[in-house]
């Protein structure tokens, strides 16, 4: 992975994954590993921290005769995710403004660059 992932970005990814639907640890890990190269051991501490910061909460459901702990985004978590999305758009624009405006031939055709 050429671009290392920061803990804030990882928080944002976890929030977004859980916001889509309530889900459980193993699934969250797999979903995030599709996009970024984090080890399987990275996610637990993040989930635990997000729980303590009350942006995620958990509930238990029975699944195939055992317990499964599901994560859900709190109201505070939804607000946090919105802020992350805004921050990310801003961040992405700043980066892309630099990366895609080197010369005429490499002009980026995204919405932001056409203003």
């Amino acid at each position, binding site marked *: 992975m050429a671009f290392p992932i920061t803990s*804030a970005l990882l928080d944002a990814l976890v929030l977004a994954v859980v916001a889509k639907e309530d889900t459980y640890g193993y699934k969250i890990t797999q979903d995030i590993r599709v996009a970024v190269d984090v*080890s*399987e051991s990275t996610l*637990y501490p993040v989930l635990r921290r997000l729980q303590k910061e009350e942006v995620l909460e958990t509930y238990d459901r029975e699944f195939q005769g055992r317990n499964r*702990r599901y994560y859900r985004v709190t109201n505070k978590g939804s607000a*946090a995710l919105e*802020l992350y999305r805004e*921050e990310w758009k801003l961040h992405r624009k700043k980066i892309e403004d630099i990366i895609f405006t080197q010369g005429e031939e490499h002009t980026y055709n995204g919405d932001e660059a056409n203003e």
Partner: protein
Amino acid sequence: MEMKPMNKYEFLSRLRNALSALPNEERDAAMSYYEEFFSDAGEDNEKAVIASLGTPEELARSIISENTAENVKTETESNFGSNSSGGYGGFTPPPTPAQSAKKWTGGQIALFVVLAVFSAPFLLSVAAVLVSLIVAFFALIIGLMAGFGGGAIGLLVGGIAAMFDNPVVGIFLLGQSLILGGLIPLAVYPLCKAIFKLAKTCAKGISALFNRLTGRKEIIQ
């Protein structure tokens, strides 16, 4: 590497042991998470999961360090403010593991004292050489000044005395005296400069030597 492959029960029991430093609540939460993780991964993926999690001890370390880092953090400030407005957001750098402050143990201090005592004869002779060099240089300067100065004064007195007898010779001698007098700062100034430069180089060399000595000592520890 492990001699025989670990199964998930061994992995989990080693993890539980490695997490014994945590409060019960934290340890139970981590244990049930990883028990579930193995179940959700399925038996087919058991080996792969174990391989990707690292050793139970490494895994425990990452859980514990995040736990303690979080305790410190909640005391000061959280990523997420008490309400949704304001300070939240931004791209915070990943938490770094707490660095233990560098502190000298009793053994290190004792070793330093022993080193200092044993190197004293060497250091003393170096100091003696330096002091005698400095004295020699000052003697040189004073000698030069005295030589030139004495010559100048002699010529001055001679010139004044000769004035009465032969004014031309007298003025000539006075001129000579002035030239000689003028030579003093001319000769002494570059010499002083050279000496200061030498002294600076020496000082640098000595401090570099000390740095190397102390540096090597730290590596030994």
